[in-house]
């Protein structure tokens, strides 16, 4: 049995030589907490400067933190790598069972280096790693099938996680994701492609350990306190009942929902694609990540008739969340829930990032609308808003890279637009496709300055919504300050590693007490300091790989379509960015 306060084991896996070793590095965890804190240190150590992200030199780091396996909602794993999409810092988080499986197997982090010369999968447990041939699984059309086969083959007890890639990862599409437990994903920034470049098809991790705490009575008390606050919190009900997809209605209401490649912010398909409508007509099951009472994962059931066989149906279980509805629904103006679910299903089976895929298709559709491309480039496909069948075909062609145009799309919207034009409405920030918010100034400053260029970095959209609700005028400098505070604090949460939905409960004071009963002393203000330090480490890596705030491209489209704060001005955005830079650099 391990001590809860001793997180120290790092599992190194070398795919070139199919060997592994374990290093004890307790001081690394003591100093950098775990999760993203330890992860960024390991990435900086292991990733040589300026390497090709799709070469064997690119390491994959998985890291968890002290709270995994101990406290509720500490259900996440952080992955760090160099992103093939942006050529810079790659960071992705996922829930499911992997965070707990890693902890219960006794590890704090896993570092995967090199690449295999044939497809393999890894079986990891407390005894180490087994390297298994995955040739049979390579090229399989569905990620769900891969999961089923591995589950049968490796009947492992304990908490078990199966991470895998789909066709998109195998083909190294730079926005391919890694799917875990069928319904959770390491999305954004292309971890799937890095797996693919290493010929790593899947990882199975399992563990079944316990952890001794320093103050048993205190532990049980604080656990109960946490449990009760989660059970009673409004967030719990909100995320459980409708789930994140409730945002479709609320963002549409305040005209902040990007529709048709952000040509507008009001969605005519709202009655079909709102979270309420999906729950009513399609919701089949709610699922939780391990050790989470909220259970926000919503899975739709879709009954699809076979075309040539009357009275034969297939039943599909398709997970949905706000972001995919925005990207694959609203952005493409799909007004049929079935249509959306079918695209979603295809994207999941192939293992693509839903946000990137939707934004790229929306850009391509607008290009066609404007005559920048024609059916000549698309090889006969007429891309039209709302036409989900054509979109599904386009997605298949992207993954198989059929022809020059689809190959360009397969590299992301930044790349495709530098080749074909239409940059002004190519919605990406720092090379990463835009998340689903157009709430105002803080939203976009947040996307631009965020270390991952993701809505989760600093939730600028949340700041806007609060400002807008209070009728306050946004001020770039103040926004930069708030974003900096939020983003640095989130580094602490992602070092523990707790779900962001728990952030109202896990305050600095509460976290400090949670640490104390397991035998680690750290004050609330030390925690906040740590957050800033970790953020600066990430920035250091970004700068090393060529990032600069000055070079950030601001897509014109976000300045054309009004937000609830009116039309945004580029100079305000730039001012916010530069202020953020000052704070980050401590000047």
């Amino acid at each position, binding site marked *: *049995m391990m001590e*809860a306060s001793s997180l120290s084991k790092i599992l190194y896996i070398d795919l070139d030589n199919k060997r592994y070793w374990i290093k004890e590095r307790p001081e690394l965890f003591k100093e950098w907490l775990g999760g993203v804190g330890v992860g960024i240190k390991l990435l900086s150590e292991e990733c040589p400067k300026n390497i090709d992200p799709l070469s064997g030199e690119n390491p994959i780091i998985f890291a968890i933190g002290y709270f995994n*396996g*101990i406290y*509720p909602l500490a259900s996440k794993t952080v992955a760090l790598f160099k992103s093939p999409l942006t050529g810079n810092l790659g960071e992705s988080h996922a829930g499911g069972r992997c965070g707990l499986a890693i*902890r*219960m197997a006794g590890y704090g982090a896993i570092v995967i280096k090199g690449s295999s010369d044939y497809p393999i999968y890894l079986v990891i447990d407390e005894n180490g790693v087994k390297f298994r041939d995955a040739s049979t699984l390579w090229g399989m059309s569905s990620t*769900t099938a891969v*999961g*089923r086969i591995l*589950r049968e083959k490796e009947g492992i007890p*304990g*908490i078990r996680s199966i991470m895998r890639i789909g066709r998109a990862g195998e083909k190294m599409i730079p926005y391919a994701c890694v799917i875990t*437990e*069928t*319904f959770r994903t390491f999305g954004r920034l292309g971890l799937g492609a890095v797996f693919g470049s290493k010929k790593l098809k899947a990882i199975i991790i399992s563990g*079944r*350990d*316990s*952890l*001794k*705490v320093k103050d*048993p*009575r205190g*532990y*049980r008390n604080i*656990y109960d306190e946490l*449990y009760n606050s989660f*059970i009673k919190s409004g967030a719990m009900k909100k995320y459980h009942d409708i789930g994140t997809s409730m945002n479709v209605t609320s963002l549409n209401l305040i005209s902040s929902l990007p529709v048709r490649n952000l040509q507008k912010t009001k969605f005519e398909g709202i009655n079909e694609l709102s979270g309420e409508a999906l729950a009513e007509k399609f919701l089949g*099951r*709610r*699922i*939780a*990540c*391990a*050790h*989470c*009472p909220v*259970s926000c994962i919503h*899975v739709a059931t879709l009954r699809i008739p076979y075309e040539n066989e009357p009275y034969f149906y297939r039943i599909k*279980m398709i997970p949905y969340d706000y972001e995919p509805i925005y990207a694959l629904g609203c952005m493409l103006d799909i007004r049929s829930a079935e249509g959306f679910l079918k695209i979603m299903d295809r994207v999941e089976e192939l293992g693509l990032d839903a946000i990137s895929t939707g934004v790229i298709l929306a850009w391509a559709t607008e290009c066609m609308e404007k005559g920048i491309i024609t059916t000549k480039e698309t090889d006969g496909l007429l891309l039209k808003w709302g036409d989900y069948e054509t979109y599904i075909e386009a997605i298949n062609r992207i993954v198989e890279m059929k022809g020059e145009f689809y190959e360009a799309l397969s590299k992301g919207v930044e790349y495709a637009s530098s080749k074909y034009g239409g940059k002004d409405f190519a919605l990406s920030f720092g090379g990463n496709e835009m998340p689903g918010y157009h709430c105002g100034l803080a939203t976009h400053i947040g996307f631009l300055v965020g270390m991952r260029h993701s809505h989760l970095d600093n939730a600028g959209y949340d700041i806007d919504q609060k400002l807008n609700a209070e009728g306050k005028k946004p001020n770039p400098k103040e926004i930069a300050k708030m974003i900096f505070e939020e983003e640095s604090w989130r580094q602490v949460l992602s070092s523990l590693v707790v779900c962001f939905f728990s952030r109202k409960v896990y305050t600095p004071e509460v976290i400090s007490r949670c640490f104390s009963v*397991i035998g680690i002393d750290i004050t609330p203000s030390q925690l906040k300091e740590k957050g800033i330090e970790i953020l600066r480490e990430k920035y250091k890596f970004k700068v090393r790989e060529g990032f600069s705030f000055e070079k950030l491209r601001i897509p014109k489209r976000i300045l054309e379509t009004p937000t609830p704060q009116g039309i945004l001005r580029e100079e305000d955005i730039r001012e916010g960015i530069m202020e953020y830079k000052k704070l980050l650099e401590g000047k």
Partner: protein
Amino acid sequence: MVKRISVVDVDLCVGCQLCMFACNRRFAEAGISRAAIFVQSVGGIERGFIIRVCRACKDPPCAKVCPTGAISKREGGGVRIDHKKCIACGNCMKNCLIGAIFWDKSLNKPIVCTYCGYCVNYCPYGVIKLEEI
């Protein structure tokens, strides 16, 4: 007044495994290695979950195969394990049809539900309850 854990409606289960962590906390430890209840998916998460916990059989098959008499029948149904008598042969585990006997690695001894009901308090969706048999 003999009690056991019963599954009220398995379709309500979201697979959060909070019950497992609760069972482990009876020993004031985090983790799951000593949990006597286990929740797992059947054929993938999309198909739902099963909950493995002792049903407190009236004539428990596990007790019948214990060579040392370490497993004694509880009056009214169910069993108790006396770890002092147990020689860790694992027969009981193999003979439980629903796999409700688990193995404590650090003790190298079997574990089974003690029908205390602690886990029930942490199931957010009322899937399990403590009932009289």
